């Protein structure tokens, strides 16, 4: 039982990270209808920014904020330079996929060019301390991840449901032409959405790095887990990203532990989820609209 709880808590901690990356993916999908294959690399890159600022002697929490600002700038820039000019993702899926793949390859290389190929060490944001619950020791870092996720999710909910800016962003997501006709500056809001998505991605990176070392491949597995989370939750649902993140986190922690043949492939349950949901319930658990057919 204790073993199981241990595995469960690991899954919840990981799930919070997948949900963070998922929140960013949902924000981008809602506004631009695009699955951003470069989301993980954008997060990796801005996590390196966090490391650089921290390495200069700035306290880690401040460095994270600086990295989020850097991430925001990267996301906004990427949208303006590469994503906006290429056109509607559902009209030209190949071109859009190739642009995000170009970003993937380019950002990965750029990180290696700037920070080298050796892994960097980023300390855990919430320290290495532990607390014992029901006889199981849980790291503060895991609890911190869940709390930060809750803050981010609440922040997004307030933004979208309680502010005029969020209303405009939802209008753009639902019908960008009509939003434009009531005077909403659509391109600028899309840029804002990309910036926000990249900023939360930074946080996902900051929580991923301490366990595995900060290298240019930091987020490649996490990205697939994040996609599994939003596929399950529904591509356009923030709540879905959070719940999907926890389900995926727990499944990929529990299954390799208890199912023989899955020891080295925690990714397999996530893959099976993606496939099954897209086949049988493409709108996911909480998605409001059907996945648009191409």
């Amino acid at each position: 039982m204790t073993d199981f709880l241990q595995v469960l808590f690991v899954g919840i901690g990981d799930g919070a990270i997948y949900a963070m990356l998922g929140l960013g993916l949902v924000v981008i999908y809602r506004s631009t209808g695009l699955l951003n294959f470069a989301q993980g690399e954008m997060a990796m890159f801005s996590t390196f920014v966090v490391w650089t600022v921290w390495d200069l002697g700035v306290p880690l929490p401040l460095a994270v904020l600086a990295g989020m600002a850097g991430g925001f700038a990267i996301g906004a820039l990427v949208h303006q330079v590469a994503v906006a000019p290429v056109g509607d993702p559902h009209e030209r899926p190949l071109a859009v996929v190739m642009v995000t793949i170009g970003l993937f390859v380019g950002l990965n290389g750029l990180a290696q060019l700037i920070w080298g190929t050796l892994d960097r060490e980023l300390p855990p944001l919430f320290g290495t301390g532990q607390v014992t619950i029901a006889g199981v020791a849980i790291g503060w870092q895991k609890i911190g991840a869940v709390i930060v996720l809750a803050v981010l999710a609440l922040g997004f909910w307030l933004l979208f449901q309680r502010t005029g800016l969020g209303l405009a962003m939802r209008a753009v997501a639902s019908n960008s032409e009509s939003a434009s006709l009531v005077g909403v500056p659509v391109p600028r809001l899309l840029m804002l959405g990309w910036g926000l998505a990249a900023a939360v991605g930074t946080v996902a990176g900051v929580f991923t790095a301490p366990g595995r070392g900060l290298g240019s491949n930091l987020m490649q597995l996490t990205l697939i887990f994040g996609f599994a989370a939003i596929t399950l939750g529904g591509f356009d649902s923030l709540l879905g990203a959070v719940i999907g993140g926890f389900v995926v986190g727990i499944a990929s922690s529990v299954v390799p532990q208890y199912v023989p043949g899955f020891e080295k492939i925690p990714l397999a349950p996530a893959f099976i989820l993606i496939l099954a949901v897209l086949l049988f319930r493409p709108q996911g658990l909480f998605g409001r609209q059907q996945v648009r057919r191409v």
Partner: protein
Amino acid sequence: MSELTAATSEPHPDPRPRSRRLPIGRIVAASIVGVVLVGLPLESPPFRNEQFVGWMAIAIAASGLNLLTGYNGQISVGHGALYGIGAYSVALLITDVGVPVWIAVALAGVICFVVGVAIGLPALRIKGLYLALVTLAVATLFPLLVEQFSSVTGGGSGLSITSPQETARGVVDRPIQLTSPFGALAPDQWKYYVFLALTVVVFVVTRNIVRSRTGRSLVAVRDNETAAEVSGIHVARVKILTFGVSAAMAGVGGAVFALNNVRVNPSSFTIAVSIYFLIAVVVGGAASVIGPAIGAVAYGVFVDVVSPELPERLQPATPVILGGLLIVLMLVAPGGIVGWWRMLVAKRAARRGAGAAADGAGPASVTRKPSSRSTDARSPEA
């Protein structure tokens, strides 16, 4: 070789009347390409020839991906996994089963065909960006699967492709060698010619598929599934078969890769490989037969020839340049090199034809004002 060059014509029938003169430019170009391809290995060092074979492996796999993604519109970011399955199939068939090399290559194609059909079935319900997502996950999963089943695959350290060979100490398992039966050619040159022949065969077969009724139905399904269905095309069968053939080609490409390196390793089949194939397809030009070959050569030249010449400090810049170029290409010339070339040709033809067709294009209408429309319509900068 002229077969290959001729294959650059478009999937849609060309509306312009074909010139009755001999296509001299085309014949000259084909001859030059032919001479270069044949002469190249005689003048190149062995490591270079092995790199060339590597490009051929990419060209074959990318051509398979092009059939699926370019012609049929199903985006796969997971062909690296099929490439890997082809490579491991060849390695295991030769090493563990003792199958002769060429039969192993054919069997790798068959195995990947079956896998491709199996992936094609769910892909009927998953389209566009979502198919890209699923195949991306497949590509990420593949190296992990290889490690999971290490008792068969050799895990992270990989497998050497061996066969029992006679040595001074009796018969022992040693890495296989592809040597020329004629003696005159070095092993790397022999490998080059053999795989070049295979590559040409694959491209000729692809061209014949694309130009056939089946090929036209691929494009019809891509452009409008409903319309294709209504005009009597069995959409599901076309899509599944395309996935199968495409996967088989990726598998043969993987087989070439494995035989070239004489060993397989999970790190050779990461997501990066799937990305290379996509790059080869879109750089050369999606939905053109020769495009993936051009793309594979362009990629190979960039990574194997240009990049090593860069100063040491700038070596890691290779992917940055590659990614940047890819984005610029998608924004500026989404049809790739071949698409860009076709556009130039079409523009030239349009300029030549513009003088002949002066008027009558505008919609007929009853107007009470004198109209200057038909001339204005042709000069958007007015």
